């Protein structure tokens, strides 16, 4: 190089790239070739592993005892059934209704009590956004009711705590249980997420001006109890992702024996008639897999089964009509040269 003004640099170090398997892209790599042996054994292993797992989870799911009692229709007598909306909106009508249920198999405590709503869109964007998280946790932001319209302020322009549509539409049916004329205690402690109680709902925030407006949505709140103890509200405010959902109501800590007659007294307050939703009461035990949910087991069984089937088919193919490995005549351009330009 004859660059005139750049002084010739002494070539003490070379610019030669350092050799390493990594920089030269020569790292050992596993490039599996799908030989019949490989494919068949992979399928077999998948089948052998998945089917027992599927069976175990299915069995476990089956062992869960669950009872679902739909009561929104049952709790209407014939007269009110004609005009359910008017009935439910009327404060004066007696909404108490009683139903009973016989335990079919033994239920080991704790028994979880859920209410299930169908066709209820807690995931509607307007609904989801209609809350103010700051107000819920911090007493100083009581007046902060952004996003809460139209449930943000009373007519007198006092801020509503907790504001927003979610809190306003709080579920307000209640259940009482008798077994063999003995009242069952329903434990309503710790039915919400611990993190919600400690971080999302303040211990010094008390309900204010709640459900005072002309239109009452759902339950009222005890103004002397801080929000982080209002567990029903906390459960309700964790909005459901799908329009059909269950929420935990409480727990029964005792066992229920076979043929126990459970009498349930329901206060049927919550208006689902207007939008054609259903209400159910669920009593369920739980196992290591959770509640009753056969899907996981079924899925394992299905995949395992298909894998085994494939393995068998491939074995048969391999035995009946073997093909040499790497036969170039099967390549697309050898198979059908006419297509190529």
């Amino acid at each position, binding site marked *: 190089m004859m660059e005139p003004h750049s002084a010739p640099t002494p070539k003490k170090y070379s610019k030669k790239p350092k050799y390493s398997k990594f920089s030269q892209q020569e790292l050992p790599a596993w490039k599996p070739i799908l030989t019949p042996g490989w494919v068949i054994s992979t399928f077999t292993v998948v089948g052998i592993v998945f089917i027992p797992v599927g069976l175990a989870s299915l069995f476990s799911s089956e062992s869960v005892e669950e009872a679902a009692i739909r009561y929104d229709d049952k709790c209407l007598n014939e007269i009110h059934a004609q005009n359910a909306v008017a009935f439910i909106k009327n404060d004066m009508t007696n909404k108490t209704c009683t139903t009973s249920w016989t335990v079919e198999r033994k239920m080991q405590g704790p028994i979880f009590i859920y209410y299930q709503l169908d066709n209820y869109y807690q995931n509607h*964007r307007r609904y989801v956004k209609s809350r103010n998280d700051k107000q819920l946790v911090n007493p100083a932001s009581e007046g902060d009711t952004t996003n809460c319209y139209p449930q943000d302020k009373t007519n007198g322009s006092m801020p509503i705590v907790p504001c927003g549509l979610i809190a306003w539409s709080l579920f307000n049916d209640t259940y009482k249980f008798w077994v063999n004329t003995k009242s069952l205690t329903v434990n309503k402690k710790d039915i919400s997420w611990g993190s919600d109680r400690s971080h999302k709902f303040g211990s010094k925030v008390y309900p204010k001006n709640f459900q005072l407006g002309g239109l009452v949505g759902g339950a009222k709140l005890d103004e002397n109890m801080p929000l982080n103890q209002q567990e029903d509200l906390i459960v309700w405010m964790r909005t459901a992702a799908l329009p059909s959902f269950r929420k935990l109501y409480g727990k029964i800590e005792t066992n229920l024996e076979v043929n126990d007659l459970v009498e349930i007294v329901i206060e049927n307050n919550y208006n689902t008639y207007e939008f054609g939703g259903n209400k159910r009461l669920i009593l369920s035990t739980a196992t290591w897999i959770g509640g009753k949910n056969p899907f996981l087991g079924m899925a394992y069984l299905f995949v395992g089964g298909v894998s085994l089937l494939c393995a068998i088919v491939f074995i048969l193919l391999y035995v009946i009509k073997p093909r040499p490995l790497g036969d170039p005549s099967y390549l697309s351009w050898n198979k059908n040269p006419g297509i190529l330009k």
Partner: protein
Amino acid sequence: MRGRRRMRKIRLSKIYSFALCGKGTLEGEHSQIGGQGFSRVVFCNEEGVMQNYSDNSVRSTKYTAVSFLPKSLFEQFRRVANFYFLVIGVLAMTKLAPYTAVSAIVPLCVIVGATMIKEGIEDWRRKTQDIEVNNRKVKVHKGDGVFEYTEWKNLRVGNIVKVEKDNFFPADLLLLSSSYEDAVCYVETMNLDGETNLKLKQGLDVTSSLQDDSNFRDFKAVVKCEDPNANLYSFIGSLEFEEQKYPLSPQQLLLRDSKLRNTDYVFGAIIFTGHDTKVIQNSTDPPSKRSKIERKMDRIIYFLFCLLFLIAFVGSILFGIATKDELDNGVMKRWYLRPDDSTIFFDPKRVASAAIFHFLTALMLYGFFIPISLYFSIELVKVLQSIFINQDVHMYYEEADKPAHARTSNLNEELGQVDTILSDKTGTLTCNSMEFIKCSIAGVAYGQGVTEVEQAMDRKIGSPLTHEQVYGTESESDENRKSSDRKTRIKGFNFTDERIMNGNWVNEPHADVIQKFFRVLAICHTAIPEVDEDTGNVSYEAESPDEAAFVISAKEIGFEFFKRTQTSLSVNEWDPVSGNKVERMYQLLNVLEFNSSRKRMSVIVKDEEGRISLLCKGADSVMFERLALNGREFEDKTLEHVQQYADAGLRTLILAYRELDENEYKEFNNAFYEAKNSVTADQETLIEEVSNKIERNLILLGATAVEDKLQNGVPDCIEKLARAGIKIWVLTGDKMETAINIGFSCCLLRQGMRQIIIHLDAPEIQALEKGGDKMAISKASRESVLRQISEAALQLTASRGASQQAFALIIDGKSLAYALDDSMKNLFLELAIRCASVICCRSSPKQKALVTKLVKSGTRKTTLAIGDGANDVGMLQEADIGIGISGFEGMQAVMSSDIAIAQFWYLERLLLVHGHWCYRRMSSMICYFFYKNITFGFTLFLYEVYASFSGEPAYNDWFLSLYSILFSSLPVIALGVFDQDVSASFLNYTNKECKMSSSAGAGSSAGCSTDSLVRQWFSSFA
């Protein structure tokens, strides 16, 4: 210093009988001065005169400090996806947003910021380069005859500068005077046209006496000349000096970026500075290149946008229906949503506007169809890929200590798509060093060297014996290069034959012929010897490397030319009688110059015994017909050897001589003198005629064979690339013969190929040219070229059915100018595409770029240009991929290339291995990207079915925005950087069957790689 004095005595212009004859006149073109396009007025050496011309600093950066932010932001948001995300970011601050604004803006800032930082770093590198150039120093006249060093950037039009030996000219200069008395200087124009031979420039006589610094104290002159333009080979102007007007021609113009050689210093007046200089005018703006995949990707992104709009539209309609349903004659359905008391966004009473607003929301929500981090990930992956390219030890050139260097990482995957390679010749295919390798003297062939072509042919035949031998010699030569102390190789001389070397030629049967042969080599040339005072070694400055090789080989055999004076040449000769070296002086009577139409050169010398002889060397096509009847003794044998040499890819010249008697010479000399001094326009013709007469009745001595040394592994590489289905065009500034020779030696042309040669050397056109009627010339030329092209096309069509004969197209620069005309270029391209090889010779830098453009736009396939000199810059920038050879020459080509490699044959690895990998990695990565984002986007849409299309996202805000830029991009990036479908060695050796991915998109080669799969993917979208 003594050497300098000695040289000074030579009026070099005497040696060159033809080249400098064409002094301009004030008539003709010069009458235009002052008119339109010729308005430049330069007041030389006048500090006070204000001149509104730009300064001499150059800038090659894309941004300045001020324009960086707005310009790079603009560049960023020109990308559809980025612009979309900007709009989304703005919208996200309104109530419409389905998620929080921060989560939408942060990713965009990260992506845009990262890309801008990358841009900034790249531009900074260019900036430092500029600073280096602008701060080079040159001596400039400061007044009172004092010259001081100053930076290039401070030069102004009209300054007088003094440029010293081996320095670059800082601007376009008007040559005033040089260290030689007649104001000549040697210029190396490697950076302009890639030619390594020295060009001679000469200043005007009136200024040639200004040889001292002090002469410039009162120097005043005015130059009027053309405006800045890109034409390197023309210059029209006039110099007003001492109230006289003198015409100026390109002969007086020293161009920026060329180098002063062999001359101690020159004085020049600056005519064009900085961006006005011809070199920089010639360089087109660096175009921002984008790979095809990226362009295809744009189409897919547009498609995704359509999908996005469609889905958002469907969603909005369904939302509208659901919302309208909310309120039935004033009765609420979903009372918990309070439809009776709603904002505009959810109001069942104003469904239409609610739906329109929802549409905007939906656009934001389903934005996850558009992979925001795609561009950035691609850029990141490309940078990592280029690091792998840079780190490849297989592309590291030990000798020059140069690894491969991917300067822009934009085009990695394009490397795997190359369809046509347009290659420069000198310095790219060849090392640009000529080596004397063989000769045929008196019908006996000497020289045992093996040429590259012979090696290549042997390899092709594949006989194991020669195979071994070839590999033996190859590794040997490699070793030779590595351990230079084993045997000091002499540049230009690669001749081994015991029969001739070390004085053994004396014992050969035709010793007298051999003596004359080497005498011709030692005398018949225009080279200038330079004697190293300390060692006594002689080195030569020759006009062309061929000539240098001849003089060097004569010296090696024992005919050492060591001194040239104005009228004589001195040679140290081995005297067979005494066995000693004897100094002989030859009186130089005339030089009959080489030019392309004569294809020969002669000198007439008188030796010490008083014998006058004419020594001639020339191309076989003109030499054999000039032999005397008694001079044809070895004709048949020589012809045979010449044929062999040509087949071996060597350049051959025929040497002959003739003794003249006194009268004959006198007669000639008178005629020659007359012709030289005639002032008519056909002076050249006259000289030619006179020369023609004397160069007859020659006696044949033999033939030389010079190898234009190919770079390592070039034939092999070209063959491999050809087997991979890549077409190779050679665009060279060289003569046609040379180009064809090289074509043979690098396997581009093969014996048995039909050559179609398009040229304008037909007699009728030459006759017209002498007439000087420009219109007529261009008309006739155009017709001639058109005729030749259509005839060739017919030939091709005719032979297509009959045989599988391959065709090669060779076209020269003049014809190319017409062939590239709008009217003809498609015809030309069609013809060229159907030929297996194409060689364009004598092409200018601009033509190279035009051809590249034609191929690129005409075939719509990826073109790759490779070159090493500044004359290739246009071509490199025009092609889809420009590859610079970072050889020993200037950095211009490398600076404007996309990827720089040190040797041509690295192209093989670059294209077949890295290109393949990068292309495959990039395409699978892009597919993967679209796949993951489309699946993700669809889950969002499907979820809306369960959320009455209200626009509630299924996932958490931060999960949404980080999904694309963080969670799901790393595995994809890993795939894009590391994935290998097949190993490097497989790619290197099996490309025969596997026509690689070079034609993906065109859809012609299915298989081998999964590219076909990728293509299906793409085609199903776009």
